[in-house]
């Protein structure tokens, strides 16, 4: 009887939402814990390496003197359900993106997407952005913006913002050049 009860108690304890049976086996856990620590350190080092290579790639391929980055954000997206975007610089297609629901929601929740990273020589350029999407009635809608900009020898960041206009229940595109 005693044996059964003990066994039962162990089994029942195991059903606890947080398994406390670990605490009863400290010795057995110590080597596993060391391995877990090592694994964690390794994971962290791999992430660090990934970051270093990422930065290296960016520095090598997109030096600040020629770097141009284009970002997309949505605020709040009540009147326009973003489907895709096309971006042209001097009438040349440079970027296009087709959004999944999840990516669209990520933007609507406040995320900013880096849409394009490229190189441009110094000079004047014309940027054209065309956003395709659906309005609240499910009709296809396009929103576009033109923007003239100068590229000097500093990196240039341009944000394309889709902003709701409550006055006319439409969404407009605002182009913001980040001041670095």
């Amino acid at each position, binding site marked *: 009887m005693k044996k059964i009860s003990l066994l039962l108690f162990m089994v029942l304890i195991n059903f606890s939402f947080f398994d406390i049976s670990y605490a009863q086996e400290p010795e057995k856990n110590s080597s596993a814990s060391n391995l877990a620590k090592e694994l964690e350190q390794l994971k962290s080092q791999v992430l660090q390496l990934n970051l270093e290579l990422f930065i290296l790639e960016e520095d090598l391929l997109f030096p600040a003197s020629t770097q141009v980055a284009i970002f997309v954000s949505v605020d709040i997206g009540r009147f326009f359900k973003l489907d895709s975007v096309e971006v042209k610089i001097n009438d040349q297609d440079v970027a296009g993106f087709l959004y999944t629901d999840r990516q669209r929601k990520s933007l609507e929740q406040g995320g900013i997407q*880096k849409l394009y990273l490229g190189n441009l020589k110094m000079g004047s350029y014309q940027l054209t952005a065309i956003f395709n999407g659906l309005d609240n009635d499910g009709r296809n809608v396009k929103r576009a913006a033109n923007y003239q900009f100068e590229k000097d020898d500093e990196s240039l960041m341009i944000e394309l913002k889709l902003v709701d206009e409550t006055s006319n229940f439409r969404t407009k595109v605002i182009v913001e050049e980040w001041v670095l």
Partner: protein
Amino acid sequence: MPSIFARTQQLNLAKTDLAEKHYRQTLFYYFQGQNETALTEVGRTQLRLGELDKKTSLLKAGLQISIGLQAQAQQVLLAFDHKNTANENIQELLLVALLSLAEQFIEQGKMAEAQDALSNILRVDSRYYSQYTMLSQLAYWPTKTNLLKMSTDKLEKNNENVNADALFSPYIQLNNALRHIENKEYQQAINLLNVLKVSSWFSEEPTFWQTLFSKKLLFGAKEYGANEDNRYTESISQGKQSLAINDYARLLLAQIYVQKALFEKALSELQTFPQHSPYRESALYLFAYSAQQSKHYTSAFNIFTLLHKQYPYSYLGWQSGELLAEQISKQQSLNQGLQAYQQLEEFYQQRVTELSSFSLQPFKFQNEAQSIWLEQALKEPSLSNLYQDLAQTNALSKTIKKLQDKSHWLAETIALNQQRKANIVTSQKNNKQQVQLNILLIKRTALAEKLSVALASEVALSHGETHETSWRDGFANDNEQAWLNRINKSKENLIYLKKKYAIDDKNQQQSIKDYQQRLNRVEGVLNWQLYQQFPQRSWHHKQALKIIDQSLARVKNQQSKILILSESQSSLAIIIEKQLKSAATAQRLLQKTQHLHAQIIKEITDNIAGYINKQQHILAQHILSTKRAMAKILEHIASNDLKIEQQLELSPKHQVDNRFTISNQEVIR
């Protein structure tokens, strides 16, 4: 044509909040469940901006927790200056982060670390109080700890129920009941469990930060997409949790009744136990055991048989077999009991044989489906954790190999860049660009001088010096210049003619005078035309000179840049150095991962060996107890036989009567 908005934006020259922009870029990845990419983005922000603001630091800690970097997250969180963090939002985020960290440590059995994380909490508001209490219970289990008092904000001060609600969380109550059971305070435990078994709960919707820091909730976030579906799934999961708590409370109640030998109560508690509950196996066992103890033999027999057949690899299944055999030997006949024990022994032996053959198999990753014993072994949390670690090392190896490829590709790109640079230097040497530039500069200087002479001459002319004609040079077009050349030629001819013919040759002198007058008239008309054009043309020349100056300046600038780039190798040298370093790091990390992989496999193998030993030991105990039971039965049979024999020896008439009585007794037994 720039838009109105764009122009407005351009006018606004206030510096962009780059920290916020980077934070939102991280969020873009986070909301898609790409936590590693989000963490890389945070790292990039830190490198680009130098330091992180508090919000991003907390986001970083959350991301670290979510991908299992607890130690790093703990460093970030514990380094946080709580007292100087007046911002309530930041305080809340910190609390959520520490609670989540503690939760993860508890899940991994790291109780000391969990206690550490909890001790860093300085205030807890009502929304998180139940979570805090529950985690404290688990971290300090079985001892009781001094909890912080709940801090209430203005809105909640009027609501007295908040405190009660927080403390009546089902998990806290369950843990309290377990503690009462542990301390043998059964009545208090029963009172609590009686309430818990019929109550229902609805947990609050998690906040953004709770979602960020909680792995479980994060899993939900991965399913993100169809909001309505999610809510439906969420509500089902909440309902299931509530039911699971009810079932668990009922099971604990039944266990207390069994411990107190109140078998009828245990039976009535478990009679309506749901068939699909996660605690079905234990409930069945408890029910069968209680039925057996309270002499409901048929139910006990049926359920023990079911358990034994349905759970051939579980402790309760094995135990059921023994209880079943015991019941058969008591309820039916000794021979049937013996037969049942023999079958049971065979069953245990079969398990032992299976275990032995399993122990001889070499361990292979992702092979768990092929062996029922490996599947069973993986139910042990420590082994399951190791198995997950192994999967992670495999994933890490793949990632490192990808990074090595990337590093290799970068090396190739650097080599191409070097080649390009060398080509530029060579072409620069071949083209003698500096000589060409110097020639252009000389030409430009000559043009500038010509312009200044022309301008000075024009000024002199305007002051009445009519003989001044140098202003015309360089401002006439081709046609006009041809005319000017012709006029000059004619002038020279006239001078020659004047010298040739004597002064007294009146006819000739008259002709020369006519020629001179005609030439002066033509020259006057041309001068007038040129003078009319002069302001416009001199302005054009000035502009052209300006443009030439600008172009030359640009060329000079470009040339000096090329010169610097071609002469200095420093920027590329830094990149090369970094690339080489990263390649070496990748190689080192790969070796480390392989080493760790081998270590984990060894640990898993050891653990499996330990598990096999443990199972073999338990099975051996079962075999031993089965053999003892069989021996007892055989003893009984022998003693019965002896009694019969003795009776037979006493009288043949008696012998027949006795045999009849004994077999009846056997049946009753």
